[in-house]
């Protein structure tokens, strides 16, 4: 598969008067053509800042302080605003969590859709046809009349669909989705996830999905990176992550989730809370909350290391984490793959 995006040792910092917050601290990953790559983690882990830096959209005083963002071999981190404008929307597009705040409330949907293909030389009829096609594509009923409505006339789910239609307007190769279903009800969340999965297949685009919900990751992603305190602590394909998690944090997250088997018993919560990004501990940032932490964890930062092909973790104790049992049985995979072949 063709490599679409490569992020190498990305660093993002927010310098303040007294202290500097290192929001992203050496993040590296790759995204291939046609895949959905998930970034999962809790609030403040740097997942959204990683995403924003991909389009040069960091809010002041945030800035990229190191690393490269190679989009088809061009470094986005070094581009001028003018160059970035050619990439935004046309090559890489972004959808946000709250569609009401990211749609313009005083413009009709028609106008906001047209902006997506402003650069192209289209006649009035062609633009209208394309706008209607887009609304149809994302499953908005009676698109001809809805084109002339305002965002407030749309329901939450329909607004998110309209957002997606606008994001797809210029046929991007890469769609960045920042918590696209978090503000929605479960039934609507389900519809939007299926829509994104289906669009990815039909249009052959890649998606980077940022979420805090492991359920959304399980349903949508091909590969996943788990982030903690500005770093990727574990990265592998989704099935491996759910069957054989190798980082204590990933394992802890899975243990914290209530499920049908946990009723009546206590959840295995991770103690404590995430560290302050301006005052990271000297060793592994997860060490203060980690059950398995030893002296070396408190002293030295672990480097990313491969524990099996394509499975990276940042942990000093891969020998301990080898015994972790995931949420699904790994043996299920071979059995089900055989089913699929049959």
């Amino acid at each position, binding site marked *: 598969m063709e490599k679409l995006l490569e992020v190498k040792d990305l660093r993002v910092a927010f310098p303040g008067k007294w202290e500097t917050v290192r929001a992203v601290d050496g993040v590296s990953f790759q995204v291939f053509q046609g895949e959905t790559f998930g970034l999962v983690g*809790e609030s403040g882990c740097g997942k959204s800042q990683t995403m924003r830096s991909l389009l040069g959209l960091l809010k002041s005083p945030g800035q990229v302080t190191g690393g490269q963002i190679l989009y088809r071999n061009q470094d986005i981190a070094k581009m001028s605003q003018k160059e970035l404008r050619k990439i935004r929307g046309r090559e890489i597009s972004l959808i946000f969590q709250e569609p009401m705040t990211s749609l313009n409330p005083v413009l009709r949907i028609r106008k906001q859709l047209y902006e997506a293909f402003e650069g192209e030389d289209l006649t009035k009829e062609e633009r209208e046809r394309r706008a209607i096609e887009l609304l149809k594509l994302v499953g908005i009923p009676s698109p001809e009349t809805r084109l002339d409505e305002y965002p407030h006339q749309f329901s939450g789910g329909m607004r998110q669909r309209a957002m997606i239609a606008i994001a797809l307007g210029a046929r991007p190769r890469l769609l960045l989705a920042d918590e696209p279903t978090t503000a929605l009800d479960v039934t609507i969340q389900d519809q939007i996830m299926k829509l994104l999965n289906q669009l990815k297949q039909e249009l052959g685009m890649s998606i980077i999905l940022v979420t805090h919900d492991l359920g959304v990751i399980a349903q949508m992603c091909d590969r996943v990176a788990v982030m903690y305190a500005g770093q990727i602590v574990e990265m592998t394909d989704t099935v491996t992550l759910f069957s054989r998690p190798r980082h204590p944090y990933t394992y802890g997250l899975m243990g914290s989730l209530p499920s049908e088997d946990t009723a009546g018993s206590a959840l295995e919560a991770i103690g404590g809370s995430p560290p302050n990004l301006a005052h990271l501990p000297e060793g592994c940032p997860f060490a203060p909350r980690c059950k398995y932490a030893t002296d070396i964890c408190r002293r030295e930062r672990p480097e990313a290391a491969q524990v099996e092909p394509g499975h990276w973790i940042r942990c000093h104790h891969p020998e301990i984490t080898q015994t972790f049992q995931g949420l699904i049985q790994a043996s299920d995979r071979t059995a089900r793959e055989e089913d699929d072949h049959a």
Partner: protein
Amino acid sequence: MREDRPLLLEVEHLCKWFPQKQSIVEMLQKKEIRQLKAVNDVSFQLYKGENLGLVGESGCGKSTLARTILRLYEPTSGTVRLNGQDISHLRGEALRRLRPQMQMIFQDPYSSLNPRMSVYDTIAEMLKVHKVVSDHEIPARVEQLLMMSGLSMDIAQRFPGEFSGGQRQRIGIARALSLNPAFIVADEPVSALDVSIQAQIINLLAQLQRELDLTVLFISHDLRVVRHITHRVMVMYLGSNVEVGPTEEIFARPAHPYTQVLTKAAPKLDPLNRQRDYAIEGEPPSPINTPPGCKFHPRCPFCTDTCRTQVPELREISPGHLCACHKPLIV
């Protein structure tokens, strides 16, 4: 079902309607005032020491129902009885005496604590206002409450702004418990928290509920949490309860098509089991113009002619399991 336990709260045909504003033209035409039926004909019982989950999509009336029971709203019609006493239309001093018996834990720990009051004052204020303990006993009681919520007296003089979301929620819990309430409403108590912190608070709530034999109405849209922590579940759709029953039964054998949809729609934590079909089309209609007959019929895959015209009654389909559907999925 916990019928062996005493009845604590009895809600009968409770309605809370909000009249909608009319334009001058509509007023002159003497049009009937449209009502937003946020809660419409809800009946259920809550037993002592029980944790009842209340689930449904946003706007289905979960919070309005809770607030009407707590008498933050006055019901439009119907009755609420707490320990046998009708509280639906209490006023003045009688209502004030009722307040300490019913407390609430809020969703957002950032906006539900006064930023200018220390943790100590936040909790002590409750004790002073309602005079539950004499003044010299207050410090000891505050300490006991903080300990119960997993905090210590060291933090008592600090302000809410210095705490993380999980700690603030613990303060909120200590405050809700301060008056020894008979009944607690927890309105989405963990949905604003991160997963790892969420588990800590869920464990705390479950432990306190067991130890203090609390009666809780647990409102949440997260069905995984509800399944974990509650004894019974009530499902609401557009202002009415469509199904009530023991938690395990509701999840294993949902009787109402809407309950089935809800339980299926939550994303499964299994990448090898990806849901391929739409669980449900469309979105809930506006509670101002509710459809005739069964309110769920426009989205229901099993809809028949009866469903379009007749409102289904809530009836028992197996002991303790009630469902409002003409064609329940289990008989």
